[in-house]
């Protein structure tokens, strides 16, 4: 379980003004919930908080714990918290299957074995025929599914989502949410979702918090 203890973070934007995203923020993952949403209007620092959990943003005070172990000083590659982005962040110079196999290769698996595993997963996503193609040849929805496959294949402890469906059109968004919820449930992965859309939070998460004035307030 994820636990945040007395997190402090001051954010300074490019114009020079700064404010506290988190001041003495403490939070614990609610028991028996698998998907948690973090809500708030744009610009309040939800993404920064997410990046702190991922290890990409330094924490200015306090600790991040996972299963009671202090991971505050752990680099991102050791935490196994996979990130998914609004712009999909697929690597343009690698094929679809190599994108998916990326994390496996970092874990030490050979090229052929990782590609085989990737293709297998892609088949369950219905994208087996696109395995060798360039990522730029895929539609938005297909790209986001590849990103999900890439994240799930390494069996992450936690999936961190940064408004992953904002770039898709409305119909696709609804469809993707449902598909996503099913896949994550069958994989049993915990998900932390950051979004500004309350209906999205309601559709995907079973508990939601609101980030405001440096603290988290439970919504439901």
């Amino acid at each position, binding site marked *: 379980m994820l636990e945040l203890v007395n997190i402090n973070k001051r954010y300074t934007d490019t114009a020079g003004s700064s404010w506290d995203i988190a001041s003495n923020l403490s939070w614990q993952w609610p028991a028996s919930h698998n998907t948690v949403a973090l809500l708030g209007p744009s610009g309040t620092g939800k993404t920064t908080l997410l*990046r702190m959990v*991922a*290890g*990409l943003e330094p924490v200015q005070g306090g600790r991040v714990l996972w299963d009671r172990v202090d991971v505050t000083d752990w*680099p*991102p*590659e050791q*935490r*196994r*918290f*996979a*990130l998914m*982005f609004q*712009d999909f*962040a697929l*690597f*343009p*110079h690698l094929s679809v299957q190599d994108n998916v196999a*990326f*994390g496996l290769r*970092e*874990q030490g698996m050979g090229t052929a074995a990782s590609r085989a595993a990737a293709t297998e997963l892609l088949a369950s996503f219905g994208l087996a025929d696109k395995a060798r193609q360039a990522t*730029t040849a895929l539609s938005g929805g297909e790209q986001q599914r590849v*990103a999900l496959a*890439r*994240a799930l294949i*390494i069996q992450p402890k936690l999936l*961190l989502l940064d408004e992953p469906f904002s770039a898709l059109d409305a119909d696709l968004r609804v469809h993707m949410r449902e598909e996503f919820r099913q896949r994550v449930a069958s994989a049993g992965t915990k998900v932390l979702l950051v979004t500004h859309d309350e209906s999205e939070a309601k559709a995907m998460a079973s508990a939601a918090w609101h980030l405001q004035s440096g603290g988290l307030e439970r919504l439901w």
Partner: protein
Amino acid sequence: MQLRSSFWVGVWPGAFIAVMALLPMLKLMWFGVYGSYASFGTEALSDGGAQLGFWQGWLGLWADDYMRSRMVWSITQAAVSTALACLLGVPVAYVIARHDFAGRDALLRLMMLPFVVPTLVAAMGVLAWWGPNGVVGNHLYAPGSDGDSPWLLIAGNLFFNLCVIVRAAVYGFSAQSATRLAAARSLGATPWRAFWRIELPSAAPHIYSAACLVLLYCLGGFGLALLLGGQTYATAEVVIYTLVAHELELVLASQLALWMLAMTGVLVAMYAKLQLSTAQPRLAQLVALRVTRWSHVGDAVAVLWVWLVCVLVGFAPLLAIALKAATASSEAWGVLWQADTWQAVANTLRFSGAALVAATVLGVMHAACGARLWWWRMWGMLPLMISPIMVAFGLLLLVPQWLDQWGLLVAAYTLLAIPLVSQPVATALAALPPSWLQAARSLGATPARAWWRVSWPLVVPAVRRGMAFAMASMLGEFAVSLFLNRPEWTTLTTYIYQHLGRPGSLQLERAWVLSALLLGLTVLVFVCIEPSKKANNAVVTGAGSA
């Protein structure tokens, strides 16, 4: 990149630049303030300048008529060349960016050719075309005029730098949102107003940064000014060379060099800041190219005019060299069979090759550890700011006992080539969306692995472009080779220059033939190293500006 690893990667190129560029300059200044001329055998001389004290003399340089006129001319010719390059280049770029015509791709690739031509060859080319005995120049000079013209130097500057502006402006005009333009038109803007209020301001940062670069090249250029400026139109760089090599007037030379350094420093700072604001990720919908309809007069005129400008300014001088070489006597062609020529070729290759390896490694390291910091990028451009004559001369004062080691020459070459590699690589790195690296890290890659598997493959085209430029520029390196020249180190450029200094038409013809040889070598190397357009398009990077 994490701070500690950035430091260890960046310290090598940073220290190299400091040692090779700053130390010689500091030694020179120290010599100017404290040194004595005794070891140069000139103690008995009445040295009016040195009595004044170094810093008062430095400030007083503007009061000296001759020095002031040289500095003013340096600035003037750079400003006029840049203004002309923009006036000619921006419309040309607009036509290229908006129209699709036969040969467009070839033209874009050919446009970089003048930039990589060695300065000596370029000067010869300009003389062959625009000079008093040139193909066209023959008719341009009034009979009885002395053949000295300020326009020769400006033509030379344009030859080199028009392509810089055009490339940058094409990139700026291409990377524009079609929807924005459509919105402007639907709000009542005529095509001209839309251009003036939407398209031009959007491309402006690219054009400004290219203009800074052009100003920098024009101010600091040595080879062109030496050959095309003559006595009457000598720029500050040429004066520095004369002061050092012919008169041993070290104090005056250092003072003048410091003023030039101040001016170039301002330009480089502006350029570094502008460069950062131009690195932007690709837009969703770009303005489409219009296919040229030859029936439409406006289109036809525009395209023809583009070709005319490019050919006249950029390609004609090269063709003129080929022409002069082709019509040279067979005795002149005999120079290709002389052992001296092949010694010069061998020297050119080994110095350039060795320096290319070093410059690539150091340049990539420099770019990797601070692509987004403007002051770090400025540090990487220090070699462009500093006069190569002063670097060479400072080295001479600093380490006279190593003047016969060719490693020293290679180190000087490397210094001058580092910015040519680090700039395109840094631009490409800055344009990489940060989310890609973050995704890689979250998928289990250490910073080094993420760099190796994600960043590096995406900047390889930029690295190769940087290498192509670096190699081409080192093949034609003139200032340092001239100054640190030892007979066993003669390169092709100094060899050509020697021929120019000897009287007689045979020597001149030999110079044409050798220039053609050097040009051929440069083009060959450039074509081999620079990535093709397809390789470039395989990845999405913003490495448009040179």
